[in-house]
């Protein structure tokens, strides 16, 4: 596949990087990334991945754009209120970069559909807001051997880690089970500063791009935390021995996907 003149110009700042080059840009154009959740994290991740020329981007979300989303979900505009988030996201991504094929899935992920969804993609971005979905994505990616980026944001804080099969711990190695409903506040209850999604969602896009290019070090075996009030990033090294993990360990007890009770989050 040869670049068109327009592509050479569009991706010139990538192609000039020794870590990317023409070869790397072709890898990006041939890559397939799935973003689950078109919200605070998924919006910036989707925009940077589209701009970078990730050839196929899937985006899954059942929700519609609400006015209260716009403080942080920058892929959607005021005129999109009431529109399906995946449709609004696709329109923005296509307007940014017509090279990108955007597949939309207007659904929440469940134990029934997630394996079919992730099987089509090389890398998964968890941009969901609730723990049942986060554990489901983790378990499905471990079982299907798919790499993914976990992230969470609340108030002025964010965290992320990257899972690559057989290379390091999974989310369930760190957090064994979802917290009971309402035990840990959600963004809706506790609030979140809008730019936090921009910081952490962009870092998720960065991990996906590095994974596809095969450059640098991923957040495998590490949890990165960001405290915006202290303006501090902190990297926590995760234990190397996680052989007793219930899903990715040597003798997994979780071999089927679990739909935990969904925490109320109606997008308002």
């Amino acid at each position, binding site marked *: 596949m040869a670049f068109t003149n327009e592509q050479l110009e569009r991706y010139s700042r990538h192609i000039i990087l020794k870590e990317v080059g023409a070869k790397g840009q072709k890898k990006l154009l041939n890559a397939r990334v799935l973003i689950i959740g078109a919200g*605070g994290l*998924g919006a910036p991740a989707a925009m940077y991945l589209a701009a970078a020329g990730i050839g196929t981007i899937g985006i899954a979300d059942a929700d519609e754009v609400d006015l209260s989303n716009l403080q942080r979900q920058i892929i959607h505009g005021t005129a999109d209120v009431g529109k399906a988030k995946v449709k609004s996201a696709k329109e923005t991504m296509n307007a940014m970069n017509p090279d990108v094929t955007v597949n939309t899935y207007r659904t929440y992920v469940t134990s029934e559909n997630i394996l079919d969804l992730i099987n089509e993609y090389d890398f998964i971005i968890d941009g969901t807001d609730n723990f049942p979905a*986060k554990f489901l994505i983790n378990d499905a990616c471990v079982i299907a051997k798919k790499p993914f980026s976990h992230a969470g944001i609340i108030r002025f804080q*964010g965290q992320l880690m990257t899972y690559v099969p057989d290379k390091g711990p999974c989310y369930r190695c760190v957090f064994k089970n979802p917290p009971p409903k309402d*035990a840990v506040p959600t963004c809706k209850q506790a609030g979140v500063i809008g730019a936090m999604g921009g910081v952490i969602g962009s870092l998720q896009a960065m991990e996906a791009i590095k994974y596809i290019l095969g450059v640098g070090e991923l957040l495998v075996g590490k949890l990165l935390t960001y405290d915006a009030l202290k303006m501090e990033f902190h990297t926590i090294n995760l234990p190397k021995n996680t052989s007793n993990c219930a899903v990715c360990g040597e003798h997994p007890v979780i071999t089927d996907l679990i739909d935990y009770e969904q925490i109320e989050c109606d997008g308002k």
Partner: protein
Amino acid sequence: MDITVAGIKKEVQENITIDKLIENEKIDNPEYVTVTVNDEFIDQENFSGKELKDSDVVEFLYFMGGGRI
């Protein structure tokens, strides 16, 4: 003795337990916090029995949701 908590060095009493450190650090919802000492997980049931040593490195890992809301 000195230990490192979340990247910050601090002086604590000799042989302090994880339980006591959680109390000192005013950690919210400690039952949902994952703790590592020197890059190893400490099980919840050992929080009261696990005594820290000089130079130990302690991390608290919190549940964080957020994103698509």
